[in-house]
Every structure is written in structure tokens, then in C-alpha cells.
């Protein structure tokens, strides 16, 4: 069974057939923004127009599609590897996909959603399922790791979008020395 690096390398190679390169989101994307999370889950944000191409490529790699809608597709391989694809169909997610940061890592060229964008997705996940309090901790850590470099106007805009301006004020108070 290939390791996580091989899994990523294979996925990046498979995604070369996409019109828009998918970008890393989720726990591994946090790592790329200096927030270390122990996760073996591989999550990508992809253009919805690439859904069929991605499905064909992943099935060819031996993945089984567990679930698929217009918004998301969950894949599994060998009982130990998961790969999830969130489809960008809305203006915010499409903009974040197109503005994803490029990282040349040892296994190839990887696109990663910005830290501000990850906070937006975390807020959406929290709104969709308020029991996901782990997302608040991730946001807290992204704010701390990105202190001084984050575009706080963009971040505040996302909190406003979800009616969570008070939560941002609370988190910022925690960061004060």
C-alpha cells in the first residue's frame, strides 16, 4: 500500500488532466500554513467542471467512490486511504481555487488554498454542523500562525458572512499577549 506521499504524488499526476488544478484543503492544507495536524485524510478543492475527469482518474488509481453529489465526492482505497474532493461551484470557492498558492514540494507542484480561504471553509463547516468544534480550534491556530501576515479584512469578511463577527472578536482577544 503506497504511503501518504505516494498517494499525494499519484493524485497530483492524475489531476494533470483537469482544466483547473485542484488545490489542497483540509488538515494537510493546515500543515502547509504552519498548523500541524495529525491527519491522513487527503482533501482537495476542485472545479466542479472537472468532476468527471477526477472521478475517472481516481477510479483508474483503484479508488472506490463512496459518495458523490454536485458538491462533494468521497473516495476510499484499500480500507486505509481516503481522498475527498469538494467541488467549487460558488463564487467564493471558485475564487479561492483560482487564487490557490503554488508550492513546489518534493513530489510535484501542489496548489494550496490560502489560510484565509481555509478559515472560510472552516466557518462554513461549522455552520453546516455546529458540533464540529474542532474547526474552531483549527481557526484559532490559523489565526495564531498567520498573525501579522493574514489578510484580516478578508478573514473578517468571512466571519461577517456567517454572522460570526463576535466569534472573531473572541478569538482575537485570546491572541492578545
Amino acid at each position, binding site marked *: 500500500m503506497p*504511503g*501518504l*506521499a505516494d498517494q*499525494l504524488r499519484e493524485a497530483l499526476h492524475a489531476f494533470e488532466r483537469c482544466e483547473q488544478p485542484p488545490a489542497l484543503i483540509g488538515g*494537510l492544507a493546515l*500543515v*502547509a500554513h*504552519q498548523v*500541524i495536524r*495529525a*491527519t*491522513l485524510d487527503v482533501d482537495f478543492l476542485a472545479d466542479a467542471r472537472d468532476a468527471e475527469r477526477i472521478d475517472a482518474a481516481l477510479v483508474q488509481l483503484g479508488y472506490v467512490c*463512496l*459518495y458523490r*453529489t454536485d*458538491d*462533494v*465526492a*468521497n473516495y476510499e482505497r484499500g*480500507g*486505509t*486511504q*481516503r481522498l*475527498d474532493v*469538494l467541488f467549487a461551484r*460558488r*463564487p*467564493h*470557492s471558485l475564487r479561492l481555487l483560482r487564487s490557490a498558492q503554488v*508550492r513546489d*514540494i*518534493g*513530489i510535484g507542484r*501542489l496548489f*494550496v488554498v490560502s489560510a484565509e480561504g481555509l478559515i*472560510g*471553509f472552516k*466557518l*462554513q*463547516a461549522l*455552520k*453546516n454542523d455546529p458540533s464540529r468544534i474542532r474547526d474552531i480550534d483549527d481557526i484559532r491556530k490559523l489565526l495564531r*500562525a498567520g498573525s501579522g501576515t493574514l489578510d484580516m479584512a478578508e478573514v473578517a469578511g468571512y466571519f461577517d*458572512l456567517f454572522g460570526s463577527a463576535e466569534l472573531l472578536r473572541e478569538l482575537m482577544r485570546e491572541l492578545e499577549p
Partner: protein
Amino acid sequence: MNSNPEAGDHANRFPFAAEGGISYAGVTHPDPFAAFFSLMEVVAMLCPNPPPHTPLRGTDFRL
């Protein structure tokens, strides 16, 4: 003019994504050490200059 008010409401409630798909319990890897080293290999690629550890606070430390 939007002829479908429900579509507009849906877009307002889910500006990023409407769902994350099926959640799943943590995968039990047959070799947890191999899984750990596999993860650390990728962490080193994604974050070659990790942030310094923050000192532990509190008094309740256990092995």
C-alpha cells in the same frame, strides 16, 4: 431577477460548500508506526520550517 427564491437562499446559507460528504470514523491503519512516518514525510514537505513549539502551560502533566 431570480425566479427561484429557494436557490438564492441556498446560496446565501452555503457560500462555500453545502456539504462535506460522508464523515468517517478514524481509519485503523494496520501499521500505526508506518502511518506516522508516512504522515511526517508529508508534513516535512508541506512545512519545511515548522513553527517553534510553544511551552506547555499548567501543572497537570502525565506520562
